[in-house]
């Protein structure tokens, strides 16, 4: 803990970073995002199992940054979002001072203690506890045995359904949607200045929370995430209605990986999946 504080304090006093986006504990003992601007502020920075937020969501607003580096505290899953944003030209690597933290999992329900039943799905199949690259690394991890990945089982179950059953399953899920767009706001990869759902001439997606509008919105959101989602599971965490949104994004990630051998947010220089093509792409479904 002291190590993270020390790193941030040094970075701010040595002007390695203009400010640091990190986490602090508020007076209700909740962990929330916090921007430390001075070495004194850095005293409040913290990290533990309750630091669920993906702070990369704040980065695209510094696209035209000219003033100096932006410090950011990242877990390995969040770092993938940072990499993806660099890949998509939303932020420059040179503008960032990345403080990686070793993470051993974050909570699903922030009101409860971290334990086997209170772990985010992404942590259950997380491959990298340590971020693959960083400017400074703080070690906060503790040994912890992860429970089984139950989402993969649910996904296999859906794969076995007939198409009508699947449509019924998703209809029942999307019916809950209240169109609050929390999934969009919290997503680090949803940075369009004007979202397609807000375009009104012509209006592509019904903005009212009807079955039809919900269906279109969720399909299009999932498609815009196809091959771009880095799997931070923030959409599902933010969803007030508990729609299993990550089922869709994870499935699309699996398709991208099986069809094209591509994983987003893994390389700073590789072209994006949709931004390029190959003449040998599979076309057995095209007559």
């Amino acid at each position: 803990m002291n190590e993270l504080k020390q790193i941030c304090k040094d970075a701010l006093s040595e002007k390695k970073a203009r400010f640091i986006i990190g986490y602090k504990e508020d007076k209700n003992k909740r962990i929330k995002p916090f921007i430390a601007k001075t070495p004194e502020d850095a005293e409040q920075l913290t990290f533990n199992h309750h630091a669920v937020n993906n702070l990369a969501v704040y980065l695209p607003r510094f696209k035209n940054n000219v003033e100096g580096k932006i410090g950011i505290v990242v877990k390995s899953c969040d770092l993938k979002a940072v990499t993806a944003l660099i890949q998509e030209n939303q932020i420059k690597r040179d503008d960032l001072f990345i403080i990686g933290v070793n993470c051993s999992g974050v909570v699903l329900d922030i009101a409860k203690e971290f334990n086997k039943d209170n772990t985010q799905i992404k942590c259950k199949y997380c491959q990298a506890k340590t971020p693959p690259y960083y400017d400074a690394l703080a070690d906060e991890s503790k040994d912890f045995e992860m429970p089984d990945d139950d989402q993969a089982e649910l996904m296999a179950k859906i794969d076995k359904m007939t198409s009508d059953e699947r449509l019924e399953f998703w209809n029942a899920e999307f019916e809950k949607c209240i169109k609050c767009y929390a999934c969009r706001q919290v997503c680090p990869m949803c940075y369009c200045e004007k979202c397609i759902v807000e375009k009104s001439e012509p209006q592509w997606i019904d903005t009212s929370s009807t079955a039809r509008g919900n269906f279109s919105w969720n399909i299009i959101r999932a498609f815009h995430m196809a091959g771009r989602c880095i799997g931070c599971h923030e959409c599902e965490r933010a969803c007030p209605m508990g729609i299993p949104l990550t089922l869709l994004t994870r499935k699309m990630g699996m398709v991208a990986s099986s069809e094209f051998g591509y994983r987003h947010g893994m390389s700073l220089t590789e072209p994006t999946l949709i931004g390029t093509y190959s003449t040998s792409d599979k076309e057995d479904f095209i007559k």
Partner: protein
Amino acid sequence: MEEKFEPKIAAFVCNWCTYTGADLAGTSRLKQEANARLIRVPCTGRIDPVFIIKAFENGADGVLISGCHPGDCHYNAGNFHARRRWILFKNLLDFIGIDSSRLYFSWVSASEGKKWVDIVDGVIDAVRAKGPFKQYKKMNKEIEIPVAAEEGVSVK
């Protein structure tokens, strides 16, 4: 007597190949069924997946997308970009439950009038056999507001 179901097919076709191919089918006086509504787009790369969703919303029972053969694109690479997008979108729709019996893809060049007729007839027959897209049509109904209705407030 029950009326025979006639499917509505929205066909998104590229201006340079399939639209011209369909035109050739017409000028060659080839007979084809009239259920497909052709929507001409500059290139298959222009087809945003939201178009396909919009077509289903507006009552299409099936969607057919067709463009130039790989390598023949008027804009060199439009159909390659489109193909990559379709692979992802097709898998997504499959996972959601709109399977390949509603969504068709083909390459038809400007000289393939006969191939176009065969494909359109094939798609129409397949969708006719599958029946109307009831699940999507059901969604078009507005959600009712029972509380307001009870109080005698008129709800549109």
